[in-house]
């Protein structure tokens, strides 16, 4: 299974992880890879912790993978990055939207939101942290945070033969095309700056 790449996308229900995986899988299918993707519906969506997995290669068997198997962790929220950190290979890359969202238990004061989530990730993994939330708000629509984040991770996928900008353009709804293309470009730039 050397040639199979595995990515896990994590966040809070409603943050738009599905669109990120859709852009990714569309590009990979066009490039001729065998692709599998897995997500969970139902109760966990209601503001809970959610994860989606994408795998591609010459031939992919399992649509899901276990701990220590991910080449890349894409986290839409800092604490969720920490929650799923053990899915990453030791040399895997974490791409994180530097953003903290209370859970129901931290918002209501039952427990504390842990401090230093992003720093803890940076200590252990090659990490690209971007303020995708802030960039999306600058663009006037907080909802395009997911596409900003996709821009930030696109180059780390190592799929240089795929024109991701074109894939974004054809995957997102046509009326939101320009906004999402701008979101993608800004995310991509932010990742370059984050590395430097």
């Amino acid at each position, binding site marked *: *299974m050397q040639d199979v790449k595995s990515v896990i996308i994590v966040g*809070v*229900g409603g943050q738009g992880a599905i669109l990120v995986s859709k852009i990714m*899988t569309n590009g990979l*299918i066009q490039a001729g890879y*065998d*692709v*599998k*993707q*897995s*997500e*969970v*519906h*139902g*109760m*966990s*969506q*209601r*503001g*809970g*912790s959610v994860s989606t997995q994408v795998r591609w290669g010459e031939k*992919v*068997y*399992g*649509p*899901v*993978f*276990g*701990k*220590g*198997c991910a080449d890349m962790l894409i986290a839409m929220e800092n*604490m*969720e990055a*920490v*929650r799923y*950190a*053990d899915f*990453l*290979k*030791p040399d895997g890359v974490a791409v994180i939207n530097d953003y903290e969202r*209370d*859970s*129901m*238990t*931290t*918002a*209501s*004061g*039952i*427990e*504390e*939101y*842990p*401090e*230093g*989530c992003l720093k*803890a*990730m940076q*200590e*252990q993994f090659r990490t690209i942290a971007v303020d995708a939330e802030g960039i999306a708000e600058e663009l006037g629509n907080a909802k395009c945070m997911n596409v900003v984040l996709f821009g930030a991770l696109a180059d780390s996928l190592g799929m240089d033969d795929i024109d991701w900008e074109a894939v974004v353009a054809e995957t997102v709804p046509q009326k939101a095309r320009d906004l999402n293309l701008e979101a993608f470009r800004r995310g991509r730039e932010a990742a370059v700056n984050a590395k430097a």
Partner: protein
Amino acid sequence: MKQLLSGNEAIARGLYEAGAEFASAYPGTPSTEVLENLVQYKDDIYCEWAPNEKVATEVAYGASMAGARSFCTMKMVGANVAADPLFTAAYQGVTGGFIFMSADDPSMHSSQNEQDNRHYARHAKIAMVEPSDSQECKDFVKMAYELSEKFDTPVLYRVTTRIDHSKSLVELGEREEHTIEPYEKNARKNVCTPANAYMNHPIVEQRIKKLAEYGNDCPFNKVEMNGTKIGVITAGISYQYAKEAFPEDTSFLKLGLTYPLPIKLIKEFADKVDELYVIEELDPFMEDQIKAAGIECKGKELTDEKYELNAQLLEERIFGKTPDTKEVAVKAVMRPPALCPGCPHRGFFYTMSKGKNYVVTADIGCYTLGCAQPLNAIDSVLCMGGGFTVGMGMSKVFERTGADKKVFGVVGDSTFFHSGMTGLAEIAYNKGNVIPVVLDNRITGMTGQQENPGSGYTLEEDAASMIKIEDIMKACGFVNVFTVDPQDLKAMQEAVDGALASEEPAAIVARRECRLLKRAEKPDGICKVDSDKCIGCKMCLKVGCPAVSFKEGKSVIDTTQCVGCTVCMQVCPADAIKKEAR
């Protein structure tokens, strides 16, 4: 070009291509998307949401009896509701092919237990088919119809969450029309009198023997010989995990027809390998039968009966390979699901959370989340319809012991039509000291907005008669029915007090649209905290809204999440929360 489809999307496509004519379902994760996708073919296939799984099975079976290729689907616990018609349909056989789909949920991502519904095939003595990816999800539907018609059997189409909700590439085909033969009455076969059932039973036993023989050489079951050292017998999603986890020279017997098992084929395969493993999720369903046939194999002592598998877990449990991971210095705290901002159920559960002697027996749906902190307002959730009836049983004991408890039996609107109405009759008939409450959010919420007999629309988006819950309650003898907007906390408390004080049987309908309903009015504003006025009492945190948090001694409302429902504003003692235009 091949398309990336989820298993459920592929099953819908398979039904279309196989010439199916009739489909009925009650929504339930992870099965729901089959009918949601199938309805695009409504010109060719009749599609409906049934009030419950038993009804879905019965109408689909009736359609089969009339000659159509028919289909019903449900989550695994729904099969318990549908078991009655299924077991007798098994005796009577089919006319048009009949597929009964059960979507199991190993690891209980969205379920109340982890039952393994493969046992239903053995228990009902019917054929069972298990696809292992989306291509098979599609292709096996047509093959299952042929099997159903050839062997005169309902087919249990058994899938799991990772089959339903994983996407893989599928080559599509064209629809092949199926011809419905003219109806001929066959009361000998189709009327389940004891005398007829007596004659049907030997046919059923004979059928299972023939199916087992067929399984030894059929397109569902495949042998992949790669070496003679290790052999793996597997099916469904476990095949994918095993292919990844076992060495390349491992041979596989991949089963698609998993009941009855092809024992002859299994024996032949076992004889060709030195070491035999049976890889399956949940119960040792295949392993027990294989061992009973005198074939030595390894399985559950290594793989475990609980939760989902994956390749990494198999590597760990069978070959002792632990994954290479790094530990981070910080630990994540829980992020449980919660009622959405603006959820109409919040006002009801907040009201319940304040009553010291209230006992709340609730049900399956979004409103199960009323159990979570900080609302913590539910005593029990058992099953669909159990909200009314578990409360009924408790109230009878409280009466006997003189316990000072006020029992509220709570169900949602869809659950009311599913199996709440019989419980309502029970409370009326046997004079229960329990207040039935229907949380009517005008839609089936948890499974993602499906229409129901109270919502006014069908699955095919036609206008339908909108059954009024209050009318049913009144017809059962509930003289005082309090209809209330649960978001108005004062009115909600008054309805509760009024129902408790009523001399005559009383019930409550708490009605407000789900925030996610497409037809719902757009939010007309958001709530904001005046931090000068906020006294930091944390009262607003007690309503359990994800948009409200506490920072540096003051409450804060997240403007991206708030939809202006005002429940937090109504509980603020300092008048520090105001609603503003968005």
